């Protein structure tokens, strides 16, 4: 809570569909959503009835069925209330979006992106590479980081998209021992931008 008006960030949550934990599972909020829905609908309908109370009380016979003019009035008021809720929420969400954009105007590249781009800069052109990594493709956020690394590494292909012999070995170790200690036999490291990342080739 370092920044003022921090609550506003609640109204813009762009990570709802990313592979990072979003902070809260949207499905856990379902009962609150239904409660809010019931409350707002009840309040809007109640207010519309309240505004029509005089005509309703004066016309007991028409209390169950509105007269045409009253029905229109009721609908208009109910509609107005729904729009008031919508406009309020839109205002809050726009403020949240502005706050989010202000905080994220400068993009900070992630480690995997920087490493991949550094390898591509060092080995320009098309290459087929074998990737050895301890990132697990079946769990998050490992799977996301792996996809990011492989995407930014292209045109160095580690997805077997291209057929042909592999001329590079890329090692990415994030949890275990440094990449340099995981080199298979007959391979030699030719580039290591970070202890966790290494590029090797087979010795002639």
């Amino acid at each position, binding site marked *: 809570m370092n920044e003022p008006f921090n609550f506003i960030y*609640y*109204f*813009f*949550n*762009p990570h*709802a*569909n*990313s*592979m990072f934990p979003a902070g809260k*599972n*949207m*499905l856990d*909020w*379902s009962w609150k*959503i*239904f409660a*809010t*829905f019931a409350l*707002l*609908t009840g309040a809007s309908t109640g207010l519309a009835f309240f505004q029509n109370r005089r005509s309703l009380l004066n016309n007991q016979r028409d209390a169950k069925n509105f007269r045409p003019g009253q029905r229109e009035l009721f*609908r208009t008021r*109910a*509609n107005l209330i*729904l729009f008031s*809720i*919508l406009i309020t*929420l*839109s205002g809050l*969400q*726009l403020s*949240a*979006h*502005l706050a989010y*954009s202000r905080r*994220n*105007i*400068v*993009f900070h*590249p*992630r480690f995997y*992106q920087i490493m991949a781009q550094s390898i591509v800069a060092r080995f320009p052109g*098309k290459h087929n590479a074998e990737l050895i990594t301890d990132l697990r493709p079946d769990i998050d956020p490992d799977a*996301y980081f792996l*996809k*990011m690394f*492989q*995407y930014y590494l*292209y*045109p160095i292909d580690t*997805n*077997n*998209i*291209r*057929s042909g012999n592999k001329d590079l070995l890329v090692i990415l170790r994030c949890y275990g021992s440094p990449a340099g200690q995981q080199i298979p036999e007959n391979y030699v490291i030719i580039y290591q931008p970070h202890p966790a990342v290494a590029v090797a080739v087979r010795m002639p």
Partner: protein
Amino acid sequence: MDFSLLFRLGLALIIPLLTGHAVISALFRRGPDRPGPFFILAMAYAMGCGLISLWFLFLGVAGLPFNNVYLVSLPPLLTGFLLRTLTPPLISPLKEDVRGPKTNWRRRAISATLILFIGTRFLLIWLDTLSKPLITWDALATWGLNAKVFFYEGSLFSLNIPHGSYPLLVPFSQTWIALHLGAWDDYLIKVFFPGIFLSYFIIQYHYLKKETGHFWALAGSCLLLSSNYYVFHVSAAYADIVISCYFCASILFLLSWRRNRHFSWLILAGFFSGFGAFTKLEGSAYLIIHSVILFDLLCRERNLRLKDKIYGFLAFAVPACSIAGSFHVYKMIVRAAKHPNELLVFSLDSLPEKSADFFQHFFEQLVYVENWNICWWIVPAYLLLFPDRIREDPRLRSILTTLALFGLFYLGAANLTGSYVYLGGENTAFVLPRILIHVFPLAPLFIALANGPKVKT
């Protein structure tokens, strides 16, 4: 950003505009029914992107390299202009525009606020697009990666691309921009997404302006931008926003046909429906939804002869099925492995359980305020508030039918295919909200039309 890069980016945006403009101009010749210039340009960009993607597919299937910028750019442009020159003019009288309520200072003040809201949202959309590279999951794993592969390899065959059975409009459109830039740029290739959204935004505004007047057209546009989730996806580089634009634009064109019975609208709807099928796998099912809506509209037109009804249906079906069919033929040629969602796995025992799960998650997602504001709440509320109005208005009925068919399709998909895991199972939170993006623009449309002037059946 240097001037040369800006010029190249400009070319990447202008060539689809010109190509699409030529085709749209062939459909709507000069005359009283010709839509306004902004509307034409909006349709032209979406049309141009679709046509160029099809041209990429043709080049790829023919074994020609599509990383040659001249081979990719010139033929669609020339064909468009040839088509424009050769086709006979199609003109029919246009009915009067609907005049909205009289403007007073209060309405003018509200309109100014709405314009401010729209302007700010668009500014933020472009800021989000251009300030971040591709970082979202599907963009990195499928759409962006495939586009990058096509850019570097310049061919379709002998490649083992991820999700090889997925349609190719989105990767091709990104490849197109990169080809003109001359290098792969993780920021600038994203301009395709807000570009296509802007096209749809103008199309919807124009449609609403014709039907309800300026004020409710503005309000409907604001409602479209009032959804955080939808707005976020415009810059997320996912295919969902693209299919949403093509799907809903096609519905709008079908409804526009109902207004002035000009076959050009049906041809246009057919093209856009076909492009939807070339954007995502679901697009082929949406083509069936469009066909049902058109069939319904044609059946209700008592003044139209049977022959004209058949021609009308063909005007829609021929372009739509040709485009969708060309992709499915390509899939057969390359023998693309089927996605689990396409495989039938039906069991009668699990039918009630799966249906209940689907409905629970579907309705939970619909009322999620953080994603959709209260747009999805207002639609059922209007069913209660204005039942007569909805019963009498064919446009509102068509929109509700579309939503019902959409729900039915996914209910069927959850029960009959392997996609249950995404529609009612453990991965629902990642996929189901994105599916709702496809039809979200129909909710603001419904609200704006329900508030606008009445239309006789």
